[in-house]
Each structure stands twice: as C-alpha cells, then as structure tokens.
C-alpha cells in the first residue's frame, strides 16, 4: 500500500513537472500548451472576473441538479412501482441519454429563452445517471425484509415506503456523484451558447478570441474544480449514509425480465419507440412555437421526403452520415481500447493509474472548445484529431466500468493462477481479461452516445465535415428542417448503436 501511494505521488509530481517544463519551453504545439505556473499566474491576474461567472455556473448547475434529480427520482419510483412504465419510457430514457448537447442547445434556446435553456440542459445531464442508479437501488433489496413487510399485510406501497426508499439511498448517492459534475458541464455548455451574460461558459466564449491559452485552461480547471467539488460533496454524503454500504454499479441498468405475453411485449416495445416522438410533438405544441422553427416529427418527414426540399436534404444528410458513422465506430473502438489498457494497467500497477486519474478527470470537465487549438496544432485536422477528441470524451466512463469489472474478478481466481507462478500480466491474460469481457459491452453501451458527440464536436470545431459541420452550417442558414433532421438522426444513430451494445452485452453475459 505504501509503495503504491508513493508511486502515485511520484507519477503525479513527474507529470506536473514535465507539463511545467513542456509549457515553459514551448515544447508542445509551438507553445499552445501553457504551463501550470502560467495558468496560475493568469488565474491570479483574472481573479476578480471569475467570481460572478463561477457563482452563475454554480447557481445554474445547482438548480438544474435539483430539478433533474427530482424528476429522475420520481421516475425511478414510478418505474419500480409499475414495471411496464419503465419499458414504456425506455425510448425516452435512452433518447435523453443519447441526446448530443450540441444538437439540442440551439433548439432549447429557441424553445426556452433565457435561463430556461441552461437549467434544462443541466437537468437533462443529471437525469439519466440518477434515474438509472435509483432504479437499481430501489429494485435490489433484501427479499427477506420484503417478506416481513408482506407478512404484516404490507403491499407494494408499504414495501416502497419502508424498505425500498431507504435502501436505495447508497445507490442514489452513487448516482448523484456522477450527476453532480454532469450538471456543471451541462450548465457550462448552455452558458457558452445561449447568450448568457455570466457563467464560466460565457467567460470562456468571451476569452476564446483572446489567443490566451492560459486563461482558457484556467477556466477549464475552474470548471473541473466545481465539478470535482460536486462529486466530493455527493461522495461525502454517500459516506455518511452508507452504513449499509454496498457497491454501486451505475453500469447495471439492466432491465427486469419482461413479463407478459408476446403481443403485449411487442405493443409495449412499439409504444416505447413511439413515445419520444409523442413527447417531442407535445412539447412543441405546449411551447406554442412557430412551425417555421419548431419542426414536429411530421415536419421533419415532410422536409426529408417531400419536394421541393426532400431530395437535396436527404442527399446532404446521407453524405454527412456516411462521413460521420465509420469514424464514430473507429473512435469508439479507440476509446474503449484506451479505457481497457488503462483498466488493465490499473489492476497491475494501481499506483500509476491513481496518479493518471486526476488528469483523466480534467479531460472530462475541460470544455473541448478550449482545447481545440491545442488539439489541431498537435493532431492536425484529419482523422487523427477526430479520433483524439472522441477518445477523450469516451474513455473515462468506459474506464470506470471496466475497472469495476476487473475489481470484481474474485481474488481466489488470481490466487489460483498465482499458485502456478503466473504473475502480473500473465495472470491478467489468463483470468482478468476473460472475466471482464461482459463489462466491455457495458462500457461500450455508455461510450456509444459520447462517441458520436465527440465526432460531431471534432467535425464542428476542427475538420469541417460530416454531421457536426452540417448541423452548424444549417444553423447559419436558418435551415430549421435540417437542424431538426440532424438532431433526430444523431439521436437515432446513438440509440441504434446503444441497442447494438445492449444486445452484444446480453449475448456476452448469457454465457
């Protein structure tokens, strides 16, 4: 343990020292990478500017966090009380998880002017992790205690009230730990685009044109600090509550086995697919927006399949999709590979990986637009930069899932091969890798929507191709039909890839 901690400290110090040297001597990307000391100096110089922005971001994130979690908790309770409702809401849940923020922010800004769009994005960002964790927590309870409650005439309501709610608390807090940084990121993303006067996102936007990388990194690190604080607060709360401590796996959003007859199941599946479209329609109707900007599902269909726009729109959309899809798969594979290597390295050399984790966390909370110049200077504007950006947005959740999977390989299995002299990498190859295979699919499931998001961001910021570019161009031309079409296609692609991963996961775990 002691040597592990020392390895962590040494690696961390080493990385920061290398960073400082590289930054001071302008070794990386002709000096576009600022050194830690430059970032600190810039932060000190700008400190008076930061406070209103930090306060605005914290406020937006906090309100969005409360709203999103309230909805997520109520939804989870409903899903557990009425299992059919979960299957029915499945399409909506996955769609919310898969929504690429860059596709929906312009739409949110139209539909919910002012603060609404920012709160909505922060709330949307927390819904899925909390809902998933809470559902698992409510569902995985001690069946013997349930018998006790039933023995005294308690029904489902009593089981919920006396057993499920409280026993879901550790899982809920685990979900909140993921949700807290998500809320911060959602808030910043919306601040960036929505014409907000204050907030780190707004500050970032104003600072982008200044060619001052130290400032941009300062803003990014401030965002990381807030997100990290959110994580730490949720973790602290979890520690206080979890006397009935139990490992929380966000990954296992597994569905209960579907009950009911074939026809009924098909009906629910169809309804679950249609429901997001109904909700989309309803929201537009309630919002009372002009059909020029707010396209209903029918509006999108008309745009894509009826003259005069249809043929050309389909052609452009298809061309963009053909550019985006293969690189999404490639980027996802690369992201999973990095996550897998990191997880394996973490199992063999935990000290080193613990030191890499803070840096990995920074890559998760650093707004990508702040890193674009650095990335294009290092990777150019071809496939490399797209893959790099995609890896950076996908590997972390995948790593967390895989590390969890590797940690669950029974000690005894390691001891067994250890007894025959297998150590380190050999033990890994013989035991850990086969055992963690199912987790790879769970990781893929989490990585899919993020991979598409990463590719679209790269296309928008660096390469100027594919769906990301089409989306941005369409915004410029007020081509609302195309904006909605790209948003729809990107969600559908995410959902399709997600479902593919779910199916592979089922096959893999069935063995």
């Amino acid at each position, binding site marked *: 343990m002691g040597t592990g901690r020392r390895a962590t400290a040494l690696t961390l110090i080493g990385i920061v020292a290398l960073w400082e040297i590289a930054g001071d001597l302008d070794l990386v990307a002709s000096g576009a990478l600022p050194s830690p000391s430059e970032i600190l100096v810039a932060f000190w110089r700008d400190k008076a500017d930061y406070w209103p922005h930090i306060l605005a971001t914290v406020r937006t994130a906090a309100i969005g966090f409360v709203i999103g979690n309230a909805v997520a908790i109520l939804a989870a309770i409903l899903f557990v009380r009425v299992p059919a409702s979960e299957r029915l809401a499945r399409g909506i849940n996955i769609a919310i998880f898969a929504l690429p923020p860059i596709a929906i922010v312009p739409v949110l800004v139209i539909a919910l002017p002012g603060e609404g769009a920012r709160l909505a994005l922060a709330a949307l960002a927390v819904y899925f992790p909390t809902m998933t964790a809470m559902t698992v927590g409510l569902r995985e309870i001690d069946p013997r205690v349930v*018998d*006790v409650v*039933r023995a005294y005439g*308690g029904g489902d309501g009593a089981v919920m009230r006396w057993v499920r709610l409280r*026993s879901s608390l550790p899982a809920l807090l685990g979900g909140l730990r993921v949700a807290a940084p998500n809320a911060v990121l959602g808030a910043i993303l919306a601040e960036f685009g929505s014409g907000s006067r204050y907030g780190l996102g707004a500050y970032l936007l104003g600072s982008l044109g200044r060619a001052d990388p130290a400032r941009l990194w300062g803003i990014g690190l401030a965002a990381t600090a807030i997100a990290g604080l959110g994580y730490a607060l949720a973790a602290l709360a979890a520690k206080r509550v979890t*006397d009935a401590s139990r490992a929380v796996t966000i990954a296992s959003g597994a569905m209960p086995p579907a009950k009911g007859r074939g026809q009924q199941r098909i009906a629910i599946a169809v309804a679950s697919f249609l429901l997001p479209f109904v909700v989309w329609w309803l929201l537009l109707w309630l919002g009372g927006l002009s059909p020029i900007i707010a396209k209903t599902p029918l509006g999108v269909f008309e745009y894509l399949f009826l003259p005069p726009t249809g043929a050309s729109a389909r052609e452009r959309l298809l061309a963009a999709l053909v550019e985006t899809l293969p690189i999404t798969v490639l980027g996802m594979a690369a992201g999973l590979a990095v996550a897998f290597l990191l997880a394996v390295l973490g199992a063999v050399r935990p000290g080193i990986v613990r030191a890499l984790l803070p840096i990995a966390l920074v890559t998760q909370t650093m707004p990508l637009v702040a890193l674009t110049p650095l990335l294009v200077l290092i990777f150019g504007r071809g496939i490399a930069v797209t893959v790099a950006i995609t890896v950076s947005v996908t590997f972390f959740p995948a790593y967390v899932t895989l590390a969890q999977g590797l940690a669950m390989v029974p000690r005894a299995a390691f001891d067994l091969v250890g007894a025959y002299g297998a150590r380190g990498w050999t033990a890994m190859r013989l035991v850990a890798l086969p055992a963690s295979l199912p987790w790879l699919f769970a990781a893929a499931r989490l990585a899919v929507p993020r991979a598409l998001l990463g590719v679209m961001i790269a296309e928008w910021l660096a390469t100027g191709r594919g769906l990301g570019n089409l989306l941005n161009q369409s915004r410029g031309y007020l081509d609302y039909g195309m904006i909605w079409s790209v948003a729809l296609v990107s969600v559908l692609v995410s959902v399709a890839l997600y479902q593919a991963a779910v199916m592979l996961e089922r096959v893999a775990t069935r063995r």
Partner: protein
Amino acid sequence: MGGGGRAVVIEDVVKTFLVRGSPLTVLDHVSLACPPGSFIALIGPSGCGKSTLLRIALGLEHVDAGRVLIGDEAPDAVRRRGEIGIAFQDPALLPWRSVTANIALPLDVLGRRGTARDRIPGLIRLVGLAGFEEALPGELSGGMRQRVAIARSLVTDPDILLMDEPFGALDLILRRQMNVELQRIWLERRPTTILVTHGIDEAVFLADRVVVLGGRPGRIVGIVDVPFPHPRPTTMFRDPAFHALTDTVSALLAGEE
C-alpha cells in the same frame, strides 16, 4: 386474545412450482390441524416444502388445491390485521433501523400508532437486549440480531406465531438458550405456534406435537405427540424419555430417506 391463539387448519394442500418450465410438486395433499395455543414443530429434510408450508399458512403463497383456515378466516385477512407474528431463518433486519425501530417495523406497516409501541421495551427485556435499544443491526452479534427478529415477531401481540428455522444460524449453546427463551415467551402469551426446524431435539424440547415431513414431494410421514408438561427444564435434554422420542422422530426421518 391474551388467552392464547386460534386454531390453524391446513386442509389437503397441494402446491406445485414451475421449474425450468416443468411442474414440480412440492406439497402433496398435506393436512395439519393446530389446536388453539398449541406448539407444533415441523421437521423434515431440506427441500421437503416445510418453509413453503409455512408461507402458505401465512398467506404469502397461493395453493393449487386445498385451503388454510385460521379460526374461520383465510390467512390473508388475519395477516392484514397483524395477528400473525413471523420470524424467518434470517433475521431480515433493516440495517438503518435501530433495535427499537426494527422491532417497531410491523407496527409501521400496519399503521398502528400510539400505545402499540409501549410494549417494545418489555419485548427488548424479554429477549435480553436491554441496553441495546438504539444499536444498529451492524453492531450486534448474529444471536442478538436473531433475538431482535423474535421480539419483532411478538410486537403485534399475535395470536399465531410462525417461525422458519429462527435459530438455524446459531451455534448449539446459543440455540439452547434461545430455545428456553422461546418456551418462556410462548408460555407467557400462548400464541398458536408453528416452528419449522432442522433440529430434532429442539423440536421435541419445544413442541406439543412434532410433524415429520418427507421429501419430494413433501407429505406428512408421521406425527409424534410430546407428552411432557410445560415448562420443560433444560435437564430434559439428558432425560432417557426425551431421547426415546428423538429416536422415534429420527427413525421417521430416516425411513423416508
């Protein structure tokens, strides 16, 4: 109520489960009559359906044929009034509730407020947990947790007490102690009691009547009445008459094997 429980009558019960798609009969025409205030022990090999029989008596499982009557009512109705006390093999305590609050769980579920809680301190003393009122289950030993579960089964002042191997996880010494305590509790309140157990000497020590179930499918292979008067001293474990009875039960169990 204090005068002791009501009769529990199990009539010709058949229960089948679906195992991998094919039906498996667990209880095959089982009948059992428990007079008011009696103490019945159910004993049998693993998988003979004795726990299932208990759950049926409790109304938690449906039957494929036959019926269960408590007094002249179906168990569901009796259960909903909180007149059945239940203790499972596992104490099944809520880890976030103190000893007192865990014992109060049935009252919470039944929505009983006020004076219903007044008997909890007495129950805690009865099971020998005085001083641990506010302890959490994680801070208790296995035996102490089990005693909490037993106190919980008595908190509604039940007419019927159903216990599914409540001492199964305890070591022999503790188990003996708990047997004595259970006898004392039963004598005090005289609920009609059905105890499912693996332990032959435990069954003979506590029960008026030992019902021996045979396995696969479960059916009654013998009934042994225990004539010793209550309260029974622990010295009885060394009594030859006691041993003769345990041998009879053993033979019934072995004959079926």
